[in-house]
């Protein structure tokens, strides 16, 4: 979403302007303009706090129906989109639309496809929902089925929007106008915008006030309004003068999105421009909203005061954006049939219908509209990246990828580039051959795969074959895809437990052994298999390793000690890896005895390298892939390969040598990792350090084999037990593929050039992972190596070859089609900030290995400034340089970027240990978009506002101390921790209900769980916490923070919009800084 903030016009930061003097920032205050695609819609609607309910109406986006239809559509309004949609339901929504416009709108483009490809019309579900009602978006969807693009009939009528907006009515007209205008393309937008009238051109003046409207998230403050817009719009006019306009053009559409705001669009192109620019909208809304929003009032006032400080409420709010998207797009399924659609935000709860493109749960891109040339890409500086989570878990409502068996000859593939059969392959010559959509090579269709084509050139069995109609599916691999040309054996899990003094004394060993007894019944199994095929083995170690023979025929387990750690080997073959059910009694007896055997140990030294080697050797001997679960407590200082020394040195922080803290201290583990990957030995590491244990080095193998690290510093049984056990359970149970190789193929013109994540690469194209679980994500960056064409778009195919937990060799294929653009505005309109942040964070976190942290941060800031500056220069309507104009899709970029910059890795506080930083660094590298989102911008929920009677979460608030009230209790979660903050003035009753104690002072801050109390409030809070736990891949640590307690410092660290103690800028300050940077670039 673009925020365009232009605050006051030129003098953005006020300084210049007299009036503002004080405000440097104020400028920001300006209202951001959103100008964006659907999301925006969502956003807009949502945005307005006030609107919330009422609002919805407005934004309706209507996408135009697909092809032909559009016209009517636009014009017409269909009644309640809702209904309509609902009917279409799956189908989709569609907005068909002009290509250029918002992604959604892409449909037009798609249309063509539609016919061909099956994708059904796309729908912009989200939009609809909200809009639906009101505006009635239009669109229609094509049903996938028939491929018929059917009616693009419906169109939304802006009118509804009217509801809230009514006043602004202008909308309708607008829309109308659009349609009228003819360009079907835009029209769609119009719809959305429709509502709000306002064009507020100049935003400045207005703007300000508006912003007050913080509410605005919406922002669309296009700064300028320029009327030009119109012309340029679609065409993308060259004239420089217009350029802006052009830019805007696209922009406009975007802005259009701003549903909330006035329908900028309406004004045809012209409007659009405005939109971009435009504050106008803001205003529009504001006025209207004014009343409605609480915020509004402020505005008024603010403006007044504006001076000194940029009002935080006036700058783009993540909360608002999230809420808007949720309300706009959360209720309709996201149908993937259309090329280049931007999916709903990760924070939105939506269903996905696979109609030819991979679900966003598998792949998300930074932009769904790729510049056609590398020049454009360079100019924009927007990284082109896809965040791929190949084995993502789907909600139960969504179907798992179908398994396709192409028989003995294996999957049908392109002869040249070896791409797998997918919906984009074009069958020719009556179906006897097909043309590869990636490299254009023509390949014979194997006889067994031949099928006639229908009159549209589609295979008759199109719908019977997942690989022709779906974006994600699996192939059964043949023996050619297996190591050594042998089908793999089922994988094995090996539990390797540190039994040195620390581990035993803390009760950890006993805990693990107890837990293992029950957890072994929940090993992952495939589909409907009765029992898991996975075999298990056990090792304990301190300075030496103890292997256990738990063969079912033994009366008692046998322990085999290997003290030759210098040259590790596995002492037994038979009986080490066993089937749990067969050896149940022996295993139970072993797990009973382990804590006893080592109860008196005095051994404090441990080894680590040999432990992994042992596991590796065991898997080698058993000729299978597998996973090691290593429970480790200390720096491995015993004499053995991989021995480490304590090299922690805080003095290195902020020096050029800081990077060494992130680098492994020896190459031993990298080499070991290589071997592990070759064998398919994935290493999961559970660390329980009481002091420095060099996560950066110990984690190397885990990292490169696709494993996970869990760290429990100062582990204490009472407080950390639940967290550890839950993590362990989940880690053991989660779906995982072994011995995986992933390759990303792209259509000619772009190429995957860089990969981020937990894996190993032995060449430049294949991502190898010993293990890949459902939480692991790989971020892939693309670069141009040629031109792309708008017509054919760009295709990605991610193929993952892996061994399932039952030992079946499979290929999972994800396909995604993207649009290409010649206009930068299209790019900006189809970006996804969350994904972008995911990429940037991973990029930066990798950077700290080789560059000083400061340089990394500067380059991050610089890149973002360039992105925004490019937008400003090429897409936003001309306005005073002092205005900060953010693309609608990226209006949160500054706030999120600031969070990344302030993160522990890039800007550590004094209490952050080197291990923590290394740990987080590795953690983030495998995170998906949802995780990075909440990790960098934690979710802050006012518990006291929760509706005890409903299932819903209370509305989140922004991460700033100002927003906390002393009388409330808040919950903050970032994927790793949950803080429950209790204000000093909280009602005693609440405290009693929640903590079971009578006063604030009696609340113990060592609680690791909330007491189970039988009252609605307690139940609600606990259910919220449980719900949060369910959403995260790790069990979060619960920390109770009392206001004005010493722990509060820690809590404040996560209030990311505030200035941090370690020198991190507040959101407002950072925004000003960004603006300055941008202005420098522009000038």
């Amino acid at each position, binding site marked *: 979403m673009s925020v365009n903030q232009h605050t006051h016009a030129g003098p953005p930061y006020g300084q210049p302007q007299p009036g503002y003097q004080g405000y440097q920032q104020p400028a920001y205050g300006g209202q951001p303009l959103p100008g964006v695609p659907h999301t925006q819609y969502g956003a807009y609607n949502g945005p307005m706090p006030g609107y919330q309910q009422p609002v919805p109406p407005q934004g309706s986006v209507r996408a135009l129906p697909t092809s032909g239809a559009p016209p009517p559509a636009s014009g017409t309004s269909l009644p309640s989109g809702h209904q309509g949609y609902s009917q279409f339901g799956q189908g989709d929504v569609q907005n068909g639309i002009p290509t250029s416009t918002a992604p959604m709108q892409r449909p037009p483009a798609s249309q063509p496809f539609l016919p061909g490809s099956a994708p059904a019309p796309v729908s912009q579900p989200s939009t609809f929902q909200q809009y639906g009602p009101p505006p009635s978006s239009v669109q229609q969807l094509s049903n996938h089925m028939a491929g018929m693009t059917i009616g693009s009939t419906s169109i939304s009528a802006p009118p509804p929007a009217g509801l809230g907006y009514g006043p602004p009515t202008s909308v309708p007209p607008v829309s109308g106008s659009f349609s009228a205008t003819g360009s079907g393309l835009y029209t769609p937008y119009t719809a959305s915008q429709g509502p709000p009238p306002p064009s507020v051109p100049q935003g400045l003046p207005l703007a300000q006030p508006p912003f007050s409207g913080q509410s605005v998230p919406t922002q669309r403050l296009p700064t300028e309004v320029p009327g030009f817009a119109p012309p340029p719009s679609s065409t993308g006019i060259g004239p420089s003068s217009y350029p802006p306009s052009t830019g805007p053009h696209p922009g406009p559409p975007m802005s259009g999105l701003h549903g909330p705001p006035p329908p900028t669009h309406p004004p045809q192109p012209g409007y659009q421009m405005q939109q971009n620019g435009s504050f106008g909208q803001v205003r529009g809304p504001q006025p209207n909203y004014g009343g409605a929003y609480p915020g509004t009032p402020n505005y008024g006032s603010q403006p007044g005061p504006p001076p000194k400080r940029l009002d935080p409420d006036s700058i783009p709010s993540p909360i608002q954006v999230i809420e808007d998207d949720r309300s706009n797009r959360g209720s309709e399924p996201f149908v993937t049939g259309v090329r280049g659609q931007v999916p709903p935000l990760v924070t939105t709860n939506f269903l996905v219908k696979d109609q030819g493109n991979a679900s966003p749960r598998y792949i998300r891109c930074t932009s769904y509209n790729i510049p056609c040339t590398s020049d454009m890409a360079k100019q924009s500086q927007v990284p082109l990246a896809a965040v791929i989570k190949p084995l993502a878990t789907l909600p139960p409502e969504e179907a798992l990828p179908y398994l396709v068996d192409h028989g003995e000859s294996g999957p049908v593939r392109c002869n040249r580039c070896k791409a797998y059969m997918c919906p984009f392959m074009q069958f020719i010559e009556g179906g006897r051959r097909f043309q590869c959509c990636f490299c254009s090579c023509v390949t014979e269709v194997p006889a067994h795969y031949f099928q006639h084509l229908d009159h549209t050139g589609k295979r008759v069995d199109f719908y019977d074959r997942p690989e022709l109609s779906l974006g994600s599916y699996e192939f059964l691999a043949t023996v050619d895809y297996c190591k050594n040309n042998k089908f793999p054996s089922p994988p094995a899990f090996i539990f390797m437990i540190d039994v040195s003094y620390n581990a035993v004394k803390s009760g950890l060993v006993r805990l693990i052994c107890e837990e293992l007894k029950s957890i072994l019944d929940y090993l992952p199994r495939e589909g409907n298999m009765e029992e898991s095929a996975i075999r298990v083995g056990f090792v304990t170690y301190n300075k030496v390793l103890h292997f256990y023979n738990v063969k079912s025929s033994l009366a008692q387990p046998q322990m085999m000690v*290997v003290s030759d750690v210098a040259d590790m080997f596995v002492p037994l073959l038979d*009986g080490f890896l066993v089937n749990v059910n067969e050896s149940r009694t022996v295993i139970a007896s072993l797990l009973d005895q382990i804590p006893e055997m080592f109860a008196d140990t005095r051994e404090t030294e441990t080894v680590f390298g040999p432990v992994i080697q042992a596991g590796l050797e065991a898997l080698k001997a058993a000729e299978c892939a597998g996973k090691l679960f290593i429970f480790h407590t200390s720096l491995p200082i015993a004499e053995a390969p991989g021995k480490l020394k304590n090299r922690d040195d805080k003095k290195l922080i902020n020096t050029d040598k800081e990077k060494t803290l992130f680098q492994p201290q020896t190459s031993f583990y990298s080499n070991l990792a290589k071997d592990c990957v070759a064998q398919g030995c994935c290493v999961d590491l559970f660390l329980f350090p009481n002091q420095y244990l060099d996560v950066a080095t110990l984690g190397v193998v885990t990292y490169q084999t696709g494993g996970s690290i869990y760290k429990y510093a100062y582990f204490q049984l009472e407080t950390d037990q639940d967290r550890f056990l839950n993590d362990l359970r989940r880690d053991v149970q989660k779906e995982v593929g072994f011995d995986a190789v992933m390759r990303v193929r792209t259509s000619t013109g772009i190429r995957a050039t860089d990969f981020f994540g937990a894996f190993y690469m032995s060449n430049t194209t294949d991502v190898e992972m010993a293990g890949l679980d459902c939480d692991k994500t790989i971020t892939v960056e693309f670069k141009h190596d040629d031109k792309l064409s708008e017509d054919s778009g760009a295709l990605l195919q991610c193929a993952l070859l892996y061994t399932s937990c039952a030992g079946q060799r499979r290929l999972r294929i994800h396909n995604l089609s993207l649009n290409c653009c010649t206009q930068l505005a299209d790019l900006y309109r189809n970006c996804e900030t969350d994904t972008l942040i995911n990429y940037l964070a991973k990029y930066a976190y990798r950077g700290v290995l080789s560059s000083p942290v400061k340089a990394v941060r500067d380059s991050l800031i610089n890149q973002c400034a360039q992105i925004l500056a490019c937008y400003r220069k090429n897409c936003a309507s001309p306005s005073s340089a002092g205005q900060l104009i953010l693309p609608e899709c990226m209006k949160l970029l500054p706030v999120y970027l600031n969070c990344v910059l302030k993160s522990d890795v890039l800007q550590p506080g004094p209490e952050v240990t080197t291990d923590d930083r290394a740990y987080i660094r590795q953690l983030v590298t495998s995170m998906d978009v949802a995780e990075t989102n909440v990790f960098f911008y934690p979710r802050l929920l006012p518990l006291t506002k929760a509706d005890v009677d409903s299932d819903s979460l209370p509305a989140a608030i922004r991460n700033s101390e100002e927003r906390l009230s002393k009388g409330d209790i808040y919950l903050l979660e970032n994927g790793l921790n949950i803080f429950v903050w209790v204000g000093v003035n909280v009602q005693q009753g609440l405290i009693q209900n929640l903590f079971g104690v009578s006063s604030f002072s009696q609340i113990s801050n060592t609680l690791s769980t909330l007491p189970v109390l039988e009252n609605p409030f307690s139940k609600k809070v606990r259910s919220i916490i449980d719900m949060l736990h369910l959403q995260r891949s790790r069990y979060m640590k619960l920390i109770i923070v009392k206001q004005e307690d010493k722990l509060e410092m820690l809590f404040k660290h996560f209030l990311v919009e505030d200035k941090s103690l370690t020198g991190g800028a507040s959101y407002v300050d950072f925004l000003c800084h960004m603006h300055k940077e941008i202005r420098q670039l522009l000038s």
Partner: protein
Amino acid sequence: MATYLEFIQQNEERDGVRFSWNVWPSSRLEATRMVVPLACLLTPLRERPDLPPVQYEPVLCSRPTCKAVLNPLCQVDYRAKLWACNFCFQRNQFPPAYAGISEVNQPAELMPQFSTIEYIVQRGPQTPLIFLYVVDTCLEEEDLQALKESLQMSLSLLPADALVGLITFGRMIQVHELSCEGISKSYVFRGTKDLTAKQIQDMLGLSRPAVPIQQGRPLQAPEQPVISSRFLQPVHKIDMNLTDLLGELQRDPWPVTQGKRPLRSTGVALSIAVGLLEGTFPNTGARIMLFTGGPPTQGPGMVVGDELKTPIRSWHDIEKDNARFMKKATKHYETLANRTATNGHCIDIYACALDQTGLLEMKCCANLTGGHMVMGDSFNTSLFKQTFQRVFNKGLNGEFRMAFGANLEVKTSRELKIAGAIGPCVSLNVKGPCVSENELGIGGTSQWKICGLDPCTTLAIYFEVVNQHNAPIPQGGRGAVQFVTQYQHSSTQKRIRVTTIARNWADAQSQLQHIEAAFDQEAAAVLMARLGVYRAESEEGPDVLRWLDRQLIRLCQKFGQYNKDDPNSFRLSESFSLYPQFMFHLRRSPFLQVFNNSPDESSYYRHHFARQDLTQSLIMIQPILYAYSFHGPPEPVLLDSSSILPDRILLMDTFFQIVIYLGETIAQWQKAGYQDMPEYENFKHLLQAPLDDAQEILQTRFPMPRYVHTEHGGSQARFLLSKVNPSQTHNNLYAWGQVSNGRATCIWEYCKMYIQIIVCIVAVLFYLIVFGLRLGAGCICPALLI
């Protein structure tokens, strides 16, 4: 010479000593000309049920370089309470405890009948015996099962307080901890890596004091006496445990693909066993008992690769220098053997397999440490089972027939020096005035260590007469030798057995007939054979044979009587009469002939030959053949093909095999079932007689011989046929055979072959005259030839 025979026998019974010469030539030169060196066969622990050990310390000569033990040959001045050492002539005070001695009140060691006496002394703590089983698990299921049973059975045979340990190996080596409850623990080592003793001890946790890492806590926390008790535990405490443990032993689980041998890490397993004992119980009696079912195929000490297509080395390969692993492996085992010997432990090897198991390379482990070497086809045979059981046999006193860590010291009077010893011992490198510079066998020392020995263990000890010709020994002078054997008795007592013997000197020129008459041809044959076998270990077979022949020729030359150019005139005195015959069979014996024997077999035979006593050694050299027939009582017959008659049953004892052979007619009768007819009961008895006799031999023999029951024309008859002198079928195989041809006239009626030999010898003599220079002129002076 009945008197000498009696004398010899008496001496043997009393002292366990047989000298080649019982009257000694008095000068070096003379002694050299005697051809057969002055030497003796000593059985240090010969069973003497009639000899009660005395419970005090021996009295030693006070001269530091002498320290001989007071013995009946010493001159004692009862009044002054002084005694003169008969070796160095030092005069010594009796210790205070001897204050009461007089001519009539002599301590035992001064009585002539106690020329051999045994002292029980209190030295150091007594440690129980230690038995460390090192068990190969790369066996066939049946074999392993049988072995497990044997081992379990053996636990009941061990002394109750003995410490026992278990190491198993295959691809890996497991050292089992025996004191665990609820879980069985073992330390595992890989079989490809040679570890130093220190590493092994570190890895077993032996080097750290008092860190019972994995000890069970409550029980023995306070008195964990020795850490190693984890691996070596008293039998009575853990026999149940160990029985179960043995019962659960599985075959080596590592897959063996087709065309491969299982990977067997014998070398490292032994190394670990040695290291374990070395670190825990140095210098106490301990047996490492290695049970292996095949050749070591990996790691240090590997003898053959794991590819089945590459066969294990043969003599042919060795001659061609084509045995890749032999040298390295031998070196590995030699190092181990030396370490073991240094620590006073011994290594037994029980190798049961159809193919070779690498005894050639491993032989030193048993040879240097006095351990047993047993070779069989399978652990599932009575041969192995009974042999193994017999290791734990008890002797006449109800004591185990084993002793450990013996230190044998030899002292001689001035005219003699010690040239060396051959037997299951290692040199302790103690130089001294009585050590000769010329070495025969393991020389250069006056003390040897015999880590494991039993009442039969016999060493050959060679002396050199150093008295110069021009310093005659007075008439009636006697030379003396004292053998002092300190050892750990199986009851764990420390004991010292002292044997002091004396022989008369005689001037070889004037009294040759005395010397001749005192020749012990049996002892001489064995002593020469040991020398020959010892040489054969390091020299080429033919060279050794030539050397033996030359010695025989020289002996005949020296002591034979003959007329020049007249072979028929040749005669030897009775005391030499059997000697050539022994030599003849020795030449044909597997100790010197490798043809038709694998290197392992040769090593096995030689091992036993080098440690058995005189009687057994003679049987090995010249197998005994008894004939049973209706014509009379059983009688010994010539080991000759002419002894094979249709109506005889033959019983042959070669030490390693016992063969019962039914003559053609007998066999037919047996087939016809006459033995079952009451009227032919005598036939039944005839059939039974050799069986009973064989049984008797089997009862006492260690190791169990291979027992063969065959008949005329049976395939197993080859065991007999290969041993007998083939006089009736074809000529013997020697290069010069055409000369002899078996047609020579008998000189002595009882031995046809003997004649042949002599004739051969004569022929050789001629041959030598002609080609003397070629054979090395130095050996024989032409002037002396006929």
